[in-house]
């Protein structure tokens, strides 16, 4: 009896040790950027790693209040997280540390009382179908019934036999059909959705298209949870189903932000309304952040996420640490933070490998280098030293070749492979906060770029 008690005790300790640093998947609803920064700073302090996919996650932390469709997508993500697992909502203003402690304790409880779990990922399929029909109900290709299986950001493919058995379903998954492709081979194409929840991806953004090999064509970009008013009588040519143009039009529609604050697109009105720092959501204890700080944080954040996608985790981690320092210290007045920020960003700016590796895709590198310059200038400014301010101000309209509308974005990513799409998206200044977050700052250098889609048509 005593032996058993000891063994139990030992087992509990082993579980506690093994899950001492749970892997975390963060899903930020629109308007929770600052909260995400705070959370990531705390996660980094605790050395809890960020998961790359649901399969590697222990905790799913949902920030803010996701809209209904994002919620549905999160359900799918949640269904892919293996037990033991915990899903925890964190609202802006909540005590992050307490929330993490509680979720961790719950996780340990679950790990110590393992219950057999038989989740079939397929159970979420019908739900996604209906959810998809909400904004997209056209078949892209001829061969297979392409009823579009949502993957919740992580993607189950269905690249089945196309030209022999087109139109069939297997295990509820539609089969792929063939379509012409870039290399002149009519290979099987697969309807693929990127997003709305992926690591280092603007949560809520959905990019869909036909995938052949890993090349995406017929791309359509949209924001989840955004009303998709269809223009009546929109012809919708075969390559551009009505749903697409309907969504694109929505960029110009007014009242988007009212829809749960989830528009993800800031229109000019939003920019002006947001220069007030009090409007930045989830600022909490950091309300002393100046607009410049928020801008600097935003650049650092974009840079870190881009480096994640570009596969340079060491530099991304360092950039993130600089961001934490800025977030903690308010302005970058701490000499140490300043020095490390300079060193880190300079190294990224100078990296020949990065230049060589991501060069060749559009103007990705230019935009990223511009962020680096902005950060360097931002640091210089806040130190009161003489930076090359002329560059920082830059021409309004900002980064080289920065697209301004969804149509531009779609044109940019169309015909690119998955990795290039990820890199391009990561290099765009997409405002996930729907204007209610940090990326809208009054500086002229980026004000123009944050208005993606706002001026469409």
């Amino acid at each position, binding site marked *: 009896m005593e032996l058993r008690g000891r063994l139990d005790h030992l087992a509990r300790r082993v*579980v506690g040790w093994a899950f001492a640093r749970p892997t975390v998947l963060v899903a930020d609803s629109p308007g929770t950027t600052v909260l995400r920064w705070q959370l990531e700073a705390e996660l980094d302090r605790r050395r809890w790693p960020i998961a790359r*996919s649901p399969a590697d996650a222990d905790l799913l932390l949902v920030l803010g209040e996701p809209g209904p469709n994002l919620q549905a997508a999160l359900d799918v993500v949640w269904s892919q997280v293996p037990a033991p697992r915990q899903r925890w909502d964190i609202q802006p203003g909540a005590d992050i540390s307490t929330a993490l402690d509680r979720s961790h304790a719950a996780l340990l409880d679950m790990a110590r009382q393992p219950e057999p779990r038989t989740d079939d990922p397929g159970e979420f399929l019908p739900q996604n179908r209906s959810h998809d029909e909400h904004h997209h109900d056209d078949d892209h290709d001829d061969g297979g019934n392409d009823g579009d299986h949502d993957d919740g950001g*992580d*993607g189950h493919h269905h690249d089945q036999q196309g030209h022999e058995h087109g139109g069939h379903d297997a295990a*509820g998954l539609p089969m792929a059909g063939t379509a012409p492709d870039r290399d002149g081979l009519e290979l099987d194409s697969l309807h693929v959705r990127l997003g709305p929840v992926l690591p280092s991806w603007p949560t809520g953004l959905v990019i869909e298209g036909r995938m052949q090999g890993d090349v995406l064509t017929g791309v359509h970009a949209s924001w989840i949870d955004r009303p998709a008013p269809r223009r009546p009588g929109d012809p919708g040519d075969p390559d551009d189903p009505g749903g697409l143009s309907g969504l694109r039009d929505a960029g110009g529609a007014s009242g988007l932000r009212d829809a749960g604050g989830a528009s993800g697109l800031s229109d000019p009105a939003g920019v002006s309304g947001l220069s007030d720092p009090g409007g930045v959501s989830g600022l909490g204890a950091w309300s002393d952040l100046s607009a410049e700080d928020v801008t600097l944080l935003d650049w650092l954040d974009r840079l870190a996420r881009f480096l994640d996608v570009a*596969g*340079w985790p060491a530099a991304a*981690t360092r950039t993130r640490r600089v961001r934490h320092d800025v977030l903690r210290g308010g302005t970058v007045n701490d000499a140490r933070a300043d020095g490390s920020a300079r060193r880190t960003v300079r190294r990224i700016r100078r990296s020949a490998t990065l230049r060589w*590796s991501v060069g060749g895709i559009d103007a990705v590198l230019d935009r990223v280098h511009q962020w680096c310059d902005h950060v360097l200038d931002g640091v210089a400014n806040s130190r009161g030293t003489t930076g090359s301010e002329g560059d920082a101000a830059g021409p309004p309209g900002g980064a080289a070749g920065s697209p301004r509308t969804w149509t531009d974005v779609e044109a940019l990513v169309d015909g690119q492979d998955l990795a290039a799409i990820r890199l391009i998206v990561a290099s765009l200044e997409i405002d996930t906060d729907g204007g209610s977050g940090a990326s809208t700052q009054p500086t002229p250098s980026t004000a123009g770029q944050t208005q993606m889609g706002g001026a469409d048509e």
Partner: protein
Amino acid sequence: MGEAALVLLVGLGLGAVFAATDHAVLTADAHGIGVPIRRATRLLLTQRRTTLAPDRLLWRIGCVAVPLLAFGSLAVVPITGSSLLSTTADLVWFNTMEVLLWGAVWLAGWGPNAVHALTGGYRFLAQGLAYELPLMFAIITAGLGAGSLNAESVVAAQDGMWFVVTMPVAFAAFLLGAAGFAFWGPLSAPAGADIAGGVMSELSGVDRLSVEAGRAVFLGSAAAMAATLFLGGGHGPWLPGTAWLLIKTLLVIGAMILAGRRMPVVRPERFMDVAWIVLIPATLVQALAVALLVISGYYG
């Protein structure tokens, strides 16, 4: 029996060292020594997840094969002066284990029936076509210098001078190939963050442990093989041969991580160009130079 246990132990040890050092460099966290073991325990306690309509048989085969091949490759490394499997074609054996990994990794990507995993599998093969020939030429160059495909003979041939002196290009190509077949560091595109972890994206529990551990062991084994082929294996003064081999292996591991983590992932299409236009000719010239040295009697 004892030797098999030794290979198992050394493999796990080197893998753990590699994973711990890698973690420490990545996160700048010097206290991460126990991280690999903790992670392994965590994965053992985690549910083994499935996906929708997977090809379960092939998936499992792929996951299990990764560590098996890793230990298989270590079996021809003469750890104690002699190796577990001493054959007349050790170098080709090592190469074969690494090529069998092509199949294993592709199966691990294919099995779960998911976009990102499959993309990772394809990427691995595409990248394989890039690094494989330089790697083969690098391995065979060491065999050429020693006049034997047996690892022990290669070590014996380096009694006077390490092969790295006359084969620097082959040494570099070998380490690059090692990063490639273990899809790690600058060649980790098959498991890249841009495809949500690629071949690893759908793995959880013991499956993920199997692939991650197998990859770490493979990297450790590759470092040991690099030390064997190019750094004189167990040759060195004062200390016993095994100690020298391990020291050199650890140095190779450290050098790989320091160099590999200084740069971002190299996109496969970029690397492909360099591999075929620069690396293959370079390794061929290296082999030619070594062949000329052999004819001239340089290696004795």
